[in-house]
C-alpha cells in the first residue's frame, strides 16, 4: 500500500515537469511576496498573462521582504533554465553578478516595479527595459496634490513627514526625493521616519513622531500597510480631514474609503497589474519573435482621487487594482 503511494508520488513528480517542456517558463525574482497585498495584484497580472500566452510562471521571493534572498533565487531560476526573468532592482549591486550570469546564458531580463537606479549609464544592469512607475514623478505628484488641497482649504503646510517602511529600497528613496523636490523649495521641512510593515508598531511610531512634532500637518505614506498604520493612528487621535493632509502610494479598499470621506487626498497608483502582465507579454514576444522595446513603459503615476475612486473600487474587488 505504501509502496504504491510512493510510486504514484514519484510518477507525479516525473510527469509534471515533463509535460511542461514545450512551453516557455518565466520566473519573477523580486524583493517582496504574497505577504504584502500590493504584490498579490502583480502576481495576478502575471498569472492572467500566463494563461493568455500559455506559458509557465513562477514567483520567487521571500514571503514579505528580503533583498538578500534575491541572488539565490536568481541562481535557482538560471538552474531551472527559464526562458525569461522579471526582476526588481532595489539594490543593483546585490544582484549584479547573478543577473550577469543569467544574461550570459542568453536569458532576457525585464525590470519591473523598482527601476535600476543606474539605468542608461555605464553601471546599468544588462536588462531589456523597465515596466513600472516613475517613482520620482509619483513623489512629486503627491507633493503637488497636498499643496493644492491645502491652498483650497486656505491652510498652510507647516512641516511634512515621510515614513519609509522598507529600508534600502531605492524606489522608495526615489519617491522621497520627488516629494522633497517640490516641498523643500517652498520652504517646508520634510522629516524622514523609519517604520515597518507591521501596522500596530508603525502606528505607535507615528504617534510618537506627532507628539514630538505637533506642527507637522502633511504626510505621505508609501504603501497600503503604512497607510493602515496612519489610519489607525489618526482614528485613535481623533483627527479630522484637514487636520493633516495625507496622500499615499498604491491602493487598498481602506485607502479608497478614506479618499471618499476626505481623509486622503489622493493615492498614486503604479498599476501593479500592468507590471506583472506586461512583463510576461514582452518576455513571450521576445522569446517567440525577438521583439523588444527601446524605451521604458511607465505604468504610473496614475492619480486616484475623489473624482475616479468609485470605478477603481469596482476593479479592486476583482483584483485588478
Amino acid at each position, binding site marked *: 500500500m505504501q509502496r504504491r503511494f510512493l510510486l504514484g508520488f514519484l510518477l507525479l*513528480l516525473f510527469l509534471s515537469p515533463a509535460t511542461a517542456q514545450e512551453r516557455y517558463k518565466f520566473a519573477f525574482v523580486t524583493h517582496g511576496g504574497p505577504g504584502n497585498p500590493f504584490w498579490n495584484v502583480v502576481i495576478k497580472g502575471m498569472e492572467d498573462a500566463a494563461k493568455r500566452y500559455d506559458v509557465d510562471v513562477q514567483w520567487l521571493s521571500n514571503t514579505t521582504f528580503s533583498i538578500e534572498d534575491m541572488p539565490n533565487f536568481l541562481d535557482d531560476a538560471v538552474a531551472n533554465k527559464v526562458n525569461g526573468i522579471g526582476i526588481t532592482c532595489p*539594490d543593483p549591486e546585490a544582484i549584479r553578478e547573478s543577473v550577469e550570469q543569467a544574461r550570459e546564458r542568453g536569458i532576457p531580463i525585464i525590470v519591473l516595479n523598482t527601476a535600476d537606479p543606474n539605468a542608461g549609464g555605464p553601471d546599468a544592469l544588462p536588462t531589456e527595459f523597465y515596466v513600472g512607475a516613475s517613482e520620482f514623478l509619483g513623489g512629486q505628484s503627491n507633493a503637488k496634490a497636498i499643496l493644492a488641497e491645502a491652498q483650497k482649504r486656505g491652510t498652510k503646510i507647516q512641516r511634512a513627514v515621510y515614513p519609509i517602511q522598507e529600508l534600502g529600497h531605492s524606489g522608495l528613496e526615489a519617491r522621497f526625493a520627488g516629494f522633497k523636490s517640490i516641498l523643500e523649495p517652498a520652504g517646508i521641512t520634510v522629516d524622514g521616519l523609519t517604520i515597518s510593515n507591521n501596522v500596530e508598531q508603525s502606528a505607535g511610531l507615528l504617534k510618537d513622531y506627532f507628539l514630538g512634532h505637533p506642527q507637522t500637518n502633511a504626510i505621505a505614506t508609501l504603501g497600503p500597510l503604512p497607510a493602515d498604520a496612519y489610519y489607525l493612528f489618526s482614528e485613535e487621535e481623533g483627527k479630522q480631514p484637514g487636520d493633516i493632509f495625507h496622500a499615499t502610494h498604491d491602493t487598498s479598499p481602506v485607502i479608497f474609503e478614506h479618499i471618499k470621506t476626505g481623509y486622503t487626498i489622493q493615492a498614486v497608483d503604479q498599476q501593479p497589474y500592468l507590471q506583472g502582465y506586461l512583463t510576461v507579454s514582452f518576455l513571450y514576444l521576445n522569446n517567440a519573435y525577438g521583439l523588444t522595446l527601446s524605451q521604458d513603459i511607465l505604468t504610473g503615476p496614475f492619480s486616484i482621487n475623489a473624482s475616479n475612486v468609485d470605478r477603481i473600487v469596482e476593479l479592486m474587488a476583482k483584483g485588478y487594482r
Partner: protein
Amino acid sequence: MKTTDAIRNRLARSPEAGAAAGFSSIFLIFALATPNTFLTNSAISSILNSQAVPGIVAIGITLLMISGEFDLSVGSILGASSLAFLYAAVNGIHILIAASFGLLAGCLLGLFNGLLLIWTGIPSFIVTLGTMLVYRAISLTAISGGRIIRYADYSREPPILEIPGITILVAVLALFVILLWTAKDIRKTPDRSLSTQILLAFALLFSAYLTLEAIIAIIPQPFAFVTIDFFSMLNGRLDIVPGNYRASILWWTGLTTVFVLILTQTRFGNAIFATGGNAQAARLQGININRVRVTNFVISGFLAAVAGIIQVARLKSVDPLRGTGMELEVIAAVVIGGTLLTGGYGSLIGSAIGTALTGMLRTGMVLIQVPTNAFRGAIGAIMIVAVIINNLVRKER
C-alpha cells in the same frame, strides 16, 4: 531483529548517518523528478553558494547546542558585525582592519552573551532572545535614517590587498607542511575516525593544489606584489571549476574541518560534550563548565561575524535588517543534522549536511515548480520528522 539492532546502533553512534540518509533520499527524489535541471552545475552551485553563509553560522550553533545552550542572537550578531565591517570600509579604513573590526564586534557580542549567562544563571534561550533584540537595535540605530550602506557609493573599484608574493608563498607552504605533519601522525593510530581522515585528506589535497599554484605563480618574481581582490577572495566565483561555484564554499568547508577536529579530537571538544551531557559530572571531574560555555559563545559570535563579512563580499551592501530570521533556519538545519536539543550529542558534519539539505529543498522546489511559500513549511515538516527519527533510534538508551 539483529540487523535492525545493528543498524540502530550505527545510527545512534553517528548523528550524521541519519542526516546523510535523509539527504540522499531527498537528493534522489529531486534527481528523478527533474534530472535536466537538478543534476546540473547551476543547481548544485546555487545550493552550495546560498548555504555557505548559514553553514558557517551553523558551526557555532552546533558547538553551543552540544554543550547544552542556545544562541538565538546569531542573526543579530551577523547583522551588527557586517555593519561594523562595511561602515569601517566605506570610511576609508583599510579593508583588513575593517574586517578585524567586524570580527572583533562578533567576538564581543558573543562574549557578552556568555558572561550574561554565567552571571545571571538565566537559561541561554531567554538570554539570547533578549540580546537578539538588543543587538538588532544596534543595527537599526547605528546609521541615521536607517539607510543601507553600499560599497559602490564609496568606490567603484573592489577593495584590493597588496601582498608581496614571497609572504603568500611562505604562508601557503607552512599550511601544507602543518597539514602533512598532522596527517602523518594521525595515520599512525588505528582508531582515528573515518570522517576525520577523509576531511584531512581533502584538506591536504586542496593545500597541495594551492601550494603548487603559488609556486608556479610566484617563484619567477618572488618579491613582486600580488594584488588580491578582497571581496573576490571571500566570495568570488571560482574560475578553475566549471559552473558558478563561489569561494564561500571553500571557507565553509575549511572552517567546518577545523572545528570538527577541535570538537572530536581535543580535550576542549571532550569538555563540550561533557558539559552538555552532564554538566554536574563535568564540573565534578574538574572541567570548568563556565569557561566552556563562554568560549562557545565567543566562537559562535566570531563565526557569525565571519559569515556576515563573507555575505557582504557578495552583496556589497549592508542593511539594518541583515540576518533577521537566520537563527531559526540554522537551528532547524542543525537539528536535522542530528544534534540533540538537550545537549551532549551532535555532529558538525551532520550540521553541514543539514544546512545543505535545507538549501537543496529550496532549489529543488523551485525546479519542480512548487510555490515558494511552501518552502518554510517543508523545512519545518522535515525537521519534525528528523527529530522523531532521531528519538526513535535513541529510545533504548
